[in-house]
């Protein structure tokens, strides 16, 4: 999954408010937005970019490889499947509020096809200095050696901004999204980072709930050689009122901050407590391990 300034990207839902605004920001950052897709508006232009009725048509005419989706939640699952079916190899779905049963169906669809989905309900992917496909503020990034992966949106910006302010650049930043059912998981991104020659260290931003951090820990232990630093949000979150026993039966003690932090620590990950100190801790650590030379 190589993203750079030459990657040709279409935008589904480009003619909406958020689609328009972020298409402009993506273009400003340097991303090659080659087409928009809005059914019924094919043949028109928006922000100087041609609009097509279908993704298939847009992809054919512009040779696009990736899509970013801003269409409203009721139509977003269809938009994802349309993009994948049209042969796009990367689909980034920004839309939040997609029903979980819909995402189950989408995942079933993806399982039989060959494409990366980032999201939904995610900030997207940024390769600093090259391209951003999504809604991350551009200026917070600077090129470098750290791969950032996160379940959160704004918390990712916070962490990336702390890094940039301390002169620590990023190779790639991926927000995988905050929903229960997601396209790429932590493990999928860790695999890419481990293989990526630009990435020398990894920051993983997790949250309480689910078992994705525990899965990541077990993957890191077995397959990741690069140093990993992590912050898990929600240590002090109120324990939500529980509803029935099913969740507890299934997760079997996992999902809590303690479970995640312990699993990651056991896998050799540096788990940071204070979200305001991620930047400085990473800087200190990099000094110690020689990843930053002064």
């Amino acid at each position, binding site marked *: 999954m190589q993203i750079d300034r030459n990657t040709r990207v279409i935008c589904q839902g480009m003619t909406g408010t958020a689609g328009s605004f972020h298409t402009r920001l993506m273009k400003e950052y340097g991303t090659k937005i080659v087409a928009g897709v809005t059914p019924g508006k094919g043949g028109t232009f928006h922000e100087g970019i041609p609009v097509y009725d279908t993704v298939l048509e847009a992809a054919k005419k512009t040779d696009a490889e990736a899509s970013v989706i801003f269409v409203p939640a009721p139509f977003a699952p269809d938009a994802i499947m349309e993009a994948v079916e049209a042969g796009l190899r990367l689909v980034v779905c920004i839309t939040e509020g997609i029903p979980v049963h819909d995402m189950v169906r989408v995942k079933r669809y993806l399982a039989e096809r060959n494409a990366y989905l980032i999201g939904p309900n995610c900030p997207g992917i940024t390769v600093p200095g090259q391209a951003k496909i999504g809604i991350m503020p551009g200026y917070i990034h600077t090129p470098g050696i750290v791969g950032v992966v996160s379940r*959160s949106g704004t918390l990712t910006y916070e962490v990336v901004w702390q890094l940039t302010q301390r002169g620590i650049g990023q190779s790639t930043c991926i927000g995988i999204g905050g929903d229960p059912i997601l396209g790429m998981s932590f493990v999928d991104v860790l695999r890419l980072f481990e293989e990526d020659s630009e990435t020398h260290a990894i920051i993983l931003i997790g949250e309480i709930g689910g078992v994705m951090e525990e899965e990541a820990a077990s993957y890191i232990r077995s397959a990741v050689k690069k140093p990993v630093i992590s912050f898990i949000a929600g240590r002090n979150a109120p324990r939500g009122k529980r509803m029935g026993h099913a969740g507890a039966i299934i997760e079997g003690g996992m999902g809590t901050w303690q479970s995640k932090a312990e699993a990651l620590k056991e896998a050799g990950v540096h788990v940071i407590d204070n979200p305001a100190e991620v930047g400085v801790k990473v800087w200190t650590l990099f000094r110690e391990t020689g990843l930053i030379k002064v």
Partner: protein
Amino acid sequence: MRLYEHQAREILQGYVTCIPKSSTIFKPEEAEEAFLKLGQPRAVIKAQVLTGGRGKAGGVKIVNSPAEAKDFAKRLLGSRLVTPQTTPEGEEVKALLFQEVISIQRELYLAFLIDRQRACSLLVGCGEGGVEIEELARKAPEKVLKDPWDSLQGLLPFQARRTAYFMGLSGSYLKEAASLILGLSRAFIEKELTLLEINPLAVTSEGSLSILDVKANFDDNAFFRHQEMVAIRPRAEESLEALASSFGLSYVGLEGNIGCLVNGAGLAMATNDIIRVCGGKPANFLDVGGDASTERVTQAFSILLRDPRLRAVLVNIFGGITRCDTIAKAILEVLKDTPLRIPMILRMEGTNALEARKMLEGSGLPFRFSREMKEATLLAIEAAEIKE
């Protein structure tokens, strides 16, 4: 949205048959009639709350006469039920379920939920039900069947039979349970539930199956397809949480004195975390979400500012799809009507942060700004302490 037991029963009516006779009352005056309507010498009355442990907390009772029913209803309706799972204030009882008394021979457990890892539906079945199920699942996991299934195919009849068989049912019970499980699976999918739990499912002394208690969660993202769920959605005036939810906001009241307004659940949790780490106490969790409109943020602020315990407000916004200028506009909007009596610390970064700062600084209102999360937090804690 968590459904009350009586709402969940209502929803299952079209899908399964073995739900005991019941009716729901909202006023003590309705108790005698509800008792008589069941037409039985006894009735079990259950407080309708969205929390577990109500039995031990006195929220469930078997009554033997209309008078006893009315008595119990008078005592319970409007009171606050405190269980190990609620806050110390407890949860107000607004409705009571009257149900026929079932004589139980054996208790079973059934649940449907979403399997996040496998991205599919999951059927959970156990030959033993009741409140000890978690303990059992931990000690003897082989007694709990977890069967992933494909929402597209739907649960297949043989899967339902296999689970019923695993639960130790045979003969006519096997068929009855299989058809019950299939019905529940359809309700789970069609009503877009994220949890559907029957515990206990009873084998009755009369030789049939009976759903004694139901817990169900509806997917809030699916309201657009479910007018019937919109109809039973908690009304905004019922609580700050409900009010927030009616505007698409996520609000949870906590016990501290620093009001928080943050965009994004992760950053909101991290903000609460750092307040704690630095020695302060957040008064709430409030996520205005991605793609926040001015109206939504305006509502968020006015909900936040209703809390009389606040000693300071910490706004932590990192703009992405939410634009900082949108937030600024909303703050100014709210403060036009509501004078700001406590310090407000603003930390804004990201999309259109500069524009936002300019707007706010131009207002002449006593905001304090910080560009760093930790600094902003310390300012808020300091302010809250002074005020106290």
